[in-house]
């Protein structure tokens, strides 16, 4: 087969690689050469040369050669994707060949070639492990030149469904079957299946067992949140019949907001935007895949949530992405457990994954956060969110009997099988797997373009995305009230050899299912053809109430929808939360807190994320009116992003998030309450309207089969209820991921109990929004809200290795504070406003000053404060519901009237001298730092 190698003439990327090897592996390599090899099937060498010259190499900057280059005195590494893992670039290359009229069997295999001088065999192996991911890639290593690769023959596995003996199995074998088959079902559930097929008088097929396991998985069924729980709440016994319904759903009901359109039942929550449009919002986690393959995991995590929005209602056009990550410290120096990637590598991979998918989709990534904590070492958390806009007044989604089941988008392969059940298991050294997927953003973009056109022409009755569980989940849910007949052999496959259950369960990316009435199928397929996206009818919706699946004429499944969706035995669970015995630390008071402030500013959680944000396109679609980076130099930390989704209207949406896992160790209730308060603060500080704000929850917990882990979850959910009602901000959707643990050699690392709150607010006029950077010399600086001795779980205590006890709480006055401040902002009375959170007043003032390129003079004695009188407590307390506001003197009176009844105080003013000067309680300066020094520290805290 002809092989072409393309090498850049300049060696920028090789230099960068050399630097990375030195930094990350401590290997000082000699000269490095990087290139790309293309192996093209079914064409002559001459033609390959022509293609190389015209398509593969940009000859001004690249050169090509035929065959394998010999790299003298170098170790050669060649990395390519494993068979069955479809690389987008290989598809694009094949498309280019078709364009040139080279049709037929021509296929392209792409691999990355790296030749490194000055290293030994052992180092070459280490570099190979660093550069490639053995789960999805092969890396071949050789000295100077690699041998030709032998072509392996295609594996042609059984094409038929197998029967699974279950009706006579003893309990221990049922459990064995569940574990070995990656079904993640417990004994009770296995017995329910056994009983069901016992009644039917036959054994199930593998397709049926897999379908049930997927449908009943924690991932799809949210068993924990929907179960009955006996809760020991620090000694008080409570019975909860359905955690989800009694907390989150109940709160939304109590807020009774008229602008709620669809909550909790669709792929995303939907709220009203204006008379003609609604907005959908959803945040998903993609934790396990990101731990194994950070790039692919983040890629497909974002791809998945975009499809959620695309499949919400009759389909929404994505208008923004948000991304929040939790990692272990990038400076981690100890030995890593087996199979765990270094946190820095995970961070880089995840950022690149989000960047490459979001940017290619043409969706601005406008909001996010990165939280660092040592216990995310084994299980990093990756939250990806998308909001979309859609016309209102479309018919409700409902697949009708007779509608065709149409698969559109990418093809089906063996990638990502068992994702739904896998995410319900705990990671360990042996986690491998097929559970990793590869994203192809352009495939999804083409599908999106086609779908929106078909939606506007009314060509389908229902739509949903193929996420976890693939066809099984998508079709199973869409047909829950009708029935469906599916012919699996009609699905377009990436390659031959898939077993029926693999086709049915495959989680290949970029696929959606639409219900198209037969009379509209022609027009639907025509649109797909124009938009270059594949679509195929693989069956139809029926009236039988049965899920009937065929493959090459063989009936491979016949399941009643009733049993499939309602047959799961719900077990009663026990949950315990015991108030931990904690105390406040004794920390020596200092005269000057300048250094402490700098240490806080350089904490990776607080430090600038500019190098990450700049890699994301936050301008595409031209609607980002408040950007993630704000201020005089476009580099200040904006509190929330504002998007104007319609080019001809000033209406907008504000998005923000809140997350503070450090509080969990004191009390998960106040952790959750604080996350909601933080999300609301960020919104309000920018101009968000608290009367039209909706929330999403994302719970990421360790293994909740442990009652001591389930207890905190219950408490956090109860806080969600209470604070949602207090703030009158309804939840509209959410997600839980309840098995974020890693075990190795008998040791388990569980993530801190983490709740991400994402908030979205619809505002009338984006022109009333403000930013957090100081605007003008001589303006007053106010602290809005009371400061308490609440440093438990604060970053200040963390610097001292302490946790403390006084966790920030949320008080009843909070809702009023938000409302009044929103009114003041929308009346133009506030010049800049910043939410006060990690690092307290000190960090908030510093950020406002250096973002606005102005100084501040402030007096701690003026702060409204309750507690032990100490400078550090006032500077670094993380009490909730507080803001810093910059007010012009002429507006002061109006501001005070607007804020009547809310605790606040003018604590200082903005100055031309570019310093942050804070006087302590004894009138002496306790901070006096140049804003440039502070900014430099903040900008250098988190290195790429």
């Amino acid at each position: 087969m002809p092989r072409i190698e393309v090498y850049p003439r300049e060696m920028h990327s090789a230099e960068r690689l050399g630097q990375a090897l030195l930094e990350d592996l401590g290997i000082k390599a000699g000269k490095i050469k990087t290139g790309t090899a293309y192996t093209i099937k079914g064409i002559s060498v001459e033609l390959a040369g022509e293609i190389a010259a015209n398509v593969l190499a940009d000859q001004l900057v690249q050169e090509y050669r035929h065959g394998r280059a010999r790299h003298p005195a170098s170790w050669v590494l060649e990395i390519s994707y494993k068979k069955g893992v479809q690389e987008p670039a290989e598809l694009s290359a094949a498309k280019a060949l078709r364009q040139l009229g080279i049709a037929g069997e021509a296929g392209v295999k792409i691999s990355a070639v790296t030749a490194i001088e000055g290293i030994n065999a052992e180092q070459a192996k280490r570099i190979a492990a660093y550069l490639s991911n053995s789960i999805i890639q092969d890396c071949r290593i050789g000295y100077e030149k690699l041998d030709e690769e032998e072509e392996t023959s295609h594996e042609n596995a059984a094409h038929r469904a197998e029967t699974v003996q279950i009706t006579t199995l003893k309990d221990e074998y049922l459990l064995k079957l569940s574990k070995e088959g990656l079904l993640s079902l417990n004994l009770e559930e296995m017995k329910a299946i056994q009983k069901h097929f016992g009644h039917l008088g036959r054994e199930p097929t593998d397709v049926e067992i897999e379908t049930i396991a997927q449908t009943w998985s924690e991932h799809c069924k949210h068993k924990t949140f929907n179960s009955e729980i006996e809760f020991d709440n620090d000694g008080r016994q409570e019975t909860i019949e359905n955690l989800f319904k009694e907390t989150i759903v109940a709160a939304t009901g109590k807020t009774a907001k008229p602008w709620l359109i669809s909550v909790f039942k669709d792929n995303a929550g939907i709220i009203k935007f204006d008379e003609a449009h609604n907005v959908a919002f959803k945040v998903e986690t993609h934790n396990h895949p990101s731990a194994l393959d950070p790039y692919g995991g983040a890629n497909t995590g974002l791809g998945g949530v975009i499809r959620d929005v695309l499949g919400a209602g009759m389909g929404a056009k994505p208008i923004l992405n948000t991304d929040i990550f939790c990692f272990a410290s990038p400076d981690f120096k100890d030995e890593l457990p087996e199979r765990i990637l270094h946190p820095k590598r995970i961070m880089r991979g995840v950022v690149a994954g989000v960047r490459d998918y979001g940017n290619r989709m043409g969706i601005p990534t406008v909001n996010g956060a990165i939280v660092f904590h040592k216990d995310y070492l084994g299980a990093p958390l990756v939250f990806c969110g998308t909001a979309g806009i859609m016309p209102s007044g479309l018919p409700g989604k409902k697949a009708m009997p007779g509608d065709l089941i149409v698969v559109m988008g990418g093809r089906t392969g063996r990638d990502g099988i068992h994702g739904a059940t896998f995410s319900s298991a705990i990671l360990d050294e042996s986690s491998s797997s097929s559970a990793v997927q590869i994203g192809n953003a352009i495939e999804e973009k083409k599908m999106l373009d086609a779908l929106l056109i078909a939606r506007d022409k009314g060509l389908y009755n229902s739509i949903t995305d193929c996420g976890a569980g693939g066809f099984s989940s998508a079709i199973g849910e869409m047909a829950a009230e009708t029935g469906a007949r599916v012919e699996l052999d009609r699905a377009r496959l990436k390659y031959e050899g898939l077993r029926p259950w693999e086709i049915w369960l495959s989680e290949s990316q970029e696929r959606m299912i639409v219900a198209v009435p037969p009379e509209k199928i022609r027009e639907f397929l025509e649109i797909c053809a124009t938009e270059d996206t594949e679509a195929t009818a693989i069956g139809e919706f029926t009236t039988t109430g049965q899920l009937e699946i065929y493959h090459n004429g063989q009936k491979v499944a016949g399941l009643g929808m009733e049993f499939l969706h309602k047959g799961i035995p719900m077990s009663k669970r026990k949950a315990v939360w015991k108030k931990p015995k904690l105390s406040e630390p004794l920390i020596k008071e200092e005269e000057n807190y300048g250094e402490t402030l700098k240490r806080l500013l350089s904490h990776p959680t607080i430090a600038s994320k500019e190098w990450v944000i700049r890699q994301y396109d936050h301008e595409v679609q031209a609607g980002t009116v408040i950007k993630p980076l704000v201020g005089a130099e476009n580099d200040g930390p904006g509190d929330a992003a504002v998007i104007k989704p319609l080019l001809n209207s000033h209406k907008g949406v504000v998005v923000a998030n809140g997350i503070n896992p450090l509080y969990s160790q004191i009390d998960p209730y106040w952790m959750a309450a604080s996350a909601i308060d933080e999300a609301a603060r960020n919104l309000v500080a920018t101009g968000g309207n608290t009367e039209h704000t909706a929330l999403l929850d994302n719970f990421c917990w360790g293994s909740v089969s442990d009652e001591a882990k389930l207890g905190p979850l219950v408490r956090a959910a109860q806080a969600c209820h209470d604070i949602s009602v207090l703030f009158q901000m309804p939840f509209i959707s959410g997600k839980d991921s309840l098995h974020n643990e890693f075990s190795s050699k008998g040791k388990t690392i569980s993530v801190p109990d983490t709740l991400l709150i994402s908030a979205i607010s619809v505002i009338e006029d984006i022109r009333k929004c403000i930013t957090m950077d100081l605007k003008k010399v001589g303006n007053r600086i106010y602290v809005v809200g009371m400061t308490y001795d609440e440093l438990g779980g604060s970053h200040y205590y963390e610097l001292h290795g302490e946790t403390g006890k006084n966790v920030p709480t949320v008080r009843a006055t909070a809702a009023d504070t938000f409302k009044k401040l929103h009114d003041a902002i929308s009346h133009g009375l506030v010049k800049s406003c910043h939410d006060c959170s990690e690092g307290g007043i000190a960090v908030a003032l510093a950020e406002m000053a250096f973002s606005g390129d102005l100084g501040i003079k402030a007096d701690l004695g003026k702060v409204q404060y309750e507690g032990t009188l100490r400078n550090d407590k006032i500077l670094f307390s993380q009490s909730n519901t507080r803001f810093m506001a910059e007010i012009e003197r002429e507006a002061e009176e109006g501001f005070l009237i607007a804020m009547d009844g809310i605790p606040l105080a003018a604590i200082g003013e903005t100055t031309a001298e570019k310093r942050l000067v804070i006087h302590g309680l004894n009138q002496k300066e306790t901070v006096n730092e140049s804003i440039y020094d502070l900014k430099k520290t903040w900008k250098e805290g988190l290195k790429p």
Partner: protein
Amino acid sequence: MEGGTEALKAKALVLRGAGLNCNDETEHALQLAGANTQQAHINELIRGRIKLADCQIAVIPGGFSYGDDLGAGRILALQIKQALKREFQEFVDEGRILAGICNGFQVLVKTGFLPGNCTATLTDNNSGHFEDRWIHIKAAGRGIFTKGIEKIYLPVNHGEGRFIAEEETLRKLNKNSQIAFRYCDRDGNESPEYPHNPNGSMQNIAAVTNEKGNVFGMMPHPEKIVSKYQHPRWTREELPEEGQGLKIYRNMVEHAEERLV
């Protein structure tokens, strides 16, 4: 009378498809500039359902055609060269306006409608990755697109925007006034320093035209700054309502309309 003005309105086509993604805001900018607009998928042009010849302006907007696989713009350029060469060639020969922004610029360089074909190219940023940031450019050439423009502040959002060319090509570009915009600092001084020159382009080149001056390509995004509220500092600076980028689209439309008269 109204029908009369309508007839004199320039018709602008915005290309769509295969991962281009700035089509909506590009169309919006053209509308604000006064054009009658239409979006067309490349397959609709290939199948002859929509004709390039019916328009006076064609814009290939930003995006990631074919995911930038094999190099930004390469595959879409190949597609245009294989399936639409004649239509595009005639369109350009007749002096109509063909513009490419960001990915569109990359496509036009790789089709050869702008200096390309092994004499010039757009390649990886010096930073090695995608970057989104606001930068200044100053008008350099005389021509349709830069008319009445001194300096514009606008975003770049790309990973492969470094313009490089052979010495001979650079000489010709300068001699023929084909360099339309160059990166500069906030005071208007041309600057090769990062991040003023965000990608390392030779001679700080941000935009070029063909020799005749009717084909235009630029890496920054003028359609992203047609209103003051798209400016990153509108909450702190006094700015006019109209964004500076709109002028480039006005120039295209005015030129096309003059030709119609």
